[in-house]
């Protein structure tokens, strides 16, 4: 990973991609879920696979009921790979298929993975999905597959990559123009499509980026913070 040339903007050093999710804005409309399926060649898991609990969603909306009828409330929680700072899935992989990139992302190398699945166990957020069978698209649905994203075969662990193909594309563009990536220039598919703008993505090393401002809010908390995984996603508490 070559370091970006010293660009005009004040913030030196590598990027640290992070996301802020405002639970007060999130309505659970699942636009992000389908946007992610379209962008990242996620397989179509039919009814049988979903019944076996093997539907693959890189981002899912967790719904929690609270209370009894009639004063019952619902909490929606979009959960995706938290790109942890100290990811519990990295030390346990015997082939370095799960490793940490200098950009602060937790990357999954499909070709190295031999399907031991320890990373899936050790992830406290259960966001790692596994390809139990080869994916299948009835023609002509495969015309829609995104050539920038590898189509995974069976026996491979996969997870949200923060749309790394978009990050890399814009980083190369910025590098070509000799500048740093602007705040908001990179938007993963879910961030881009979220109608209520609940999801915000950006470089946390840049103090005045949108995600840094949101992450500093006192409503901010991290999922399962006590485990010390230092997730890269800050949730903003819903005000009830």
């Amino acid at each position, binding site marked *: 990973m070559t370091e970006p040339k010293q660009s005009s903007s004040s913030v030196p050093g590598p990027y640290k991609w992070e996301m802020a999710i405002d639970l007060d804005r999130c309505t659970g409309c699942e636009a992000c879920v389908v946007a992610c399926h379209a962008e990242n060649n996620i397989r179509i898991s039919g009814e049988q696979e979903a019944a076996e609990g093997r539907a693959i969603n890189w981002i899912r909306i967790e719904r929690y009921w609270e209370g009894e009828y009639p004063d019952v409330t619902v909490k929606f929680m979009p959960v995706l790979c938290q790109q942890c700072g100290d990811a519990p899935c990295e030390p346990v992989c015997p082939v370095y298929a799960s490793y940490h990139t200098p950009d602060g992302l937790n990357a999954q190398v499909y070709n190295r993975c031999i399907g031991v699945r320890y990373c899936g166990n050790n992830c406290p957020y259960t966001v790692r999905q596994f390809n139990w069978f080869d994916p299948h698209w009835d023609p002509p649905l495969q015309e829609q597959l995104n050539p920038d994203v590898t189509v995974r075969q069976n*026996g491979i662990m996969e997870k949200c990559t923060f749309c790394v193909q978009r990050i890399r594309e814009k980083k190369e563009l910025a590098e070509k123009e000799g500048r740093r990536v602007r705040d908001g220039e990179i938007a993963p598919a879910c961030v881009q499509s979220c109608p209520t703008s609940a999801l915000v993505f950006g470089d946390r090393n840049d103090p005045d980026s949108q995600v840094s401002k949101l992450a500093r809010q006192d409503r901010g908390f991290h999922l399962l913070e006590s485990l010390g995984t230092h997730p890269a996603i800050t949730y903003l508490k819903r005000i009830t």
Partner: protein
Amino acid sequence: MEQEKRRWEQIPKINQDLLAPLLTTHWTYFLLVGVLVCLVAAGAGAWTYQVQTGIGQTNMHPPIFWAVYIASFIFWVGASHSGTFISGVLRLSKAEWRRPVTRIAELMTFISLMIATLFVFYHLGRVWRWYYLIPYPNQRELWPNFRSPLMWDAIAVFTYATASTIYLYLPLIPDFALLRERIDGWRRPLYRVLSFGWTGTQNQWHVLETALRIITPLIVMVMVSVHSIVGWDFGVSLVPAWHSTIFAPYFVVGAVHSGVGLVAIGLYVLRKIYHLESYITPEHFDKIGKLLVVTTLVLAYLYFAELLTIWYANIPDHMWVVDALLSGPFAVPFWFMATCIYIIPLATLTSPAFRRWPLGVMIVGVLINIGMYIERVLILVPPLSYPRLPFNWGSYFPSWVEMTIIVGSLALAVLLYALAVKVVPVISIWEEKEGLVHGAHHGK
């Protein structure tokens, strides 16, 4: 002198008794081998089907990524510790009653280790890429990550496999020399190579015994390290109810517990089939029974320690699992397991009369092993079924492919044992002779 003279005269009888299994083959043996071959073929077919179509043939799904394959791996690695523990510790303590037991146990070690490695291959998602685990230089930017407990497993099981093969082969050398003379046909060239030019000079005996005296403590230490590492596979993870310090000792004692049970079964079956009553006496079963009582008590103590700490601390993440085990969906298998490996052995093996009843000890051995298999599954599946985010809780039940592969592997183990009995004398002949001549009081 007269007594000594009479003892030397029984040596030919020993040769005759202990070589009988290799020479005569009853038709039921072929029937047994035939059945086992069919079961093994079914298992192989199921595995190829799973590799061809994808590991989705199992019932594993997020959050339960590890299930019966890894549980079977632990079970067979545990079973393999029976050999090391019994023959190793007994040799160290020079207990006379070890003589007929050591080789039976060491054969079990050798075979169950092979089955254990097989289960690792069943478990891999992309099994045709297993060699990524080997640290050989390549251009694919591949290198095994030695911080992963699975790499510790790989190295530890490899070390243990080599060590136990050596530990099996060493006492066999003199017997191979004897077989080289007594048995002809296709096995003779094999014995000639395996006996490694043994002629029986005192120096050779001395070197052999020294080597044995060196390797025995080492292999016991390896045995303890291997099953601690298998325990640390789970102990070092973040999964609630896995992440606990008790796992390493608990696994080691559990391994010995199920291993000794397995040896009890082996002793009884071989004694019954090959009429070795004069070699394997109720005294042996009594000693094995005492050993089982000790391991049951230690195992119960460790398991109680683990459950108590979780139950008392009442941390929700862990308590979901314990509740599920004690009173939730996993209650039925849990209590069945608890009776099999704690209550029944303590109830029966504490009475000396029962311990001297070979069939009884064998039945308790079988129950212990069934219980220990379920206990390995219950160590694996419930904690995985209750991840920290309750939205993702799941449940699991093995699929037919998994069950066929498990049964097929069990059949393979029994098949290998049956074949081994035809190639190697089940009881170490020279040790029996040595026991006969030098033993202070031969266990009559």
